[in-house]
């Protein structure tokens, strides 16, 4: 039997499944057997956390990035642009936010993408829905949320992220901010994209998914390690309810302060989520935690600096302001109902 990429992928998945389902036992054996640590002590709690969460998150990351890579091989910015052309407001915002999750996107390409959308006559508000959702709801954030918090919090995060992207985009559309786009953007007359849309075979898609895994895991593994190491320290050594006063529900200022700290703080999801997870355990409230994560991951300083090339300062301020307000509302809402 010839080993095609598709067959290798199937074999790799079987190996993955075996590793993932036996992880708890293996780590227990190492921590309590080989290292002879007493269950329940601080050091064993911290070490167990680190030795278990690191491979778990890396395994999940590999699988999900691969899966998302396969899905993304069906999408391209050009295709997404075609779908978004001539869509009425709101419908456009909903589609743009959803497509933001599955379209391959890197914040370094935010400017070409922005210009490409504007040129095709896609409304600014719809373009912003895309630009808000794409970085905020990314596969790395989804993996870490799912791995550490479970599917409920993951769904909440994705759902709230989509809501913010849709509503913020719709508001930006209503504000009629076209005059705050740099004039030269409208002057560009690009030649129609001559790029051939090739038909990809199943093997091509597997290869594409694998390239994504290599690229993304190479980029984030160190942050995962550091984030989980700090998280493990907090897990083992910070007293219970330590964060209750600082990031708890009773502190009304906790949400805005989290957002204020979160926006300029630039970290990828891989580094921040394990730390936030440990804080939640120590008494931080879910709303405050969600708001902090969203502002760190979704609103990044580098991306706004890049967008400054095409947006005038008032529009940058509106963009950051509208999204930050959305995050604040999510924070307060969850603190109130959970």
């Amino acid at each position, binding site marked *: 039997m010839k080993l095609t990429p598709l067959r290798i992928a199937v074999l790799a998945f079987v190996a993955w499944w075996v590793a993932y389902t036996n992880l708890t036992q293996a780590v227990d054996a190492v921590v309590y057997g080989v290292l002879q640590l007493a269950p329940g002590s601080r050091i064993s709690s911290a070490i167990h956390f680190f030795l278990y969460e690191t491979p778990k998150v890396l395994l999940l990351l590999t699988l999900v990035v691969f899966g998302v890579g396969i899905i993304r091989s069906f999408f391209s910015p050009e295709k997404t*642009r075609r779908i978004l052309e001539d869509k009425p407001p709101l419908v456009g915002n909903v589609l743009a936010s959803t497509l933001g999750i599955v379209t391959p996107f890197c914040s370094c390409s935010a400017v070409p993408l922005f210009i490409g959308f504007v040129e095709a006559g896609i409304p600014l508000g719809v373009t912003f829905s895309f630009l808000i959702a794409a970085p905020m709801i990314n596969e790395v954030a989804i993996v870490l949320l799912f791995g550490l918090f479970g599917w409920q919090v993951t769904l909440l995060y994705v759902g709230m992220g989509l809501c913010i992207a849709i509503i913020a985009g719709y508001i930006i559309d209503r504000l009629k901010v076209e005059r705050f786009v740099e004039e030269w953007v409208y002057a560009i007359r690009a030649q129609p994209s001559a790029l051939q849309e090739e038909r990809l075979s199943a093997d091509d898609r597997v290869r594409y998914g694998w*390239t994504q895994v290599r690229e993304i895991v190479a980029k984030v593994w160190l942050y995962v390690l550091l984030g989980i190491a700090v998280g493990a320290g907090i897990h083992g050594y910070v007293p219970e309810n330590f964060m209750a006063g600082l990031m708890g529900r009773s502190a009304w200022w906790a949400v805005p302060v989290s957002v204020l700290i979160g926006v300029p703080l630039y970290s990828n999801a891989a580094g921040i989520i394990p730390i936030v997870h440990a804080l939640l355990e120590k008494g931080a409230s879910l709303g405050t935690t969600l708001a902090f994560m969203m502002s760190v991951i979704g609103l990044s300083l580098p991306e706004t600096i890049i967008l400054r090339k095409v947006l005038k300062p008032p529009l940058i301020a509106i963009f950051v302001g509208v999204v930050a307000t959305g995050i604040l509302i999510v924070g307060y809402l969850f603190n109130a109902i959970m």
Partner: protein
Amino acid sequence: MTTVKILGSGCAKCKALHQRLLDLRTEHGLEFDLIKVTELREIMSYGIMATPGLVVNDVVKSTGVLPDATQILEWLKEAHHAA
């Protein structure tokens, strides 16, 4: 002579693509002009929506990805034969 342009204003993948082309040129003793296009307006005139863009003799070959070496070699050969 074949002209290869790399469209991109300094992202990590843009630099990697530039390096890959330099390596290919020395490894295979190829002859082509290699131009880095970093000016946004010029980048956008090619109608691409993700960087890096790889342009061989004014034809966009790839966008947003780092194509592998064999693929790039193939494009260069095609361009060479067409000329």
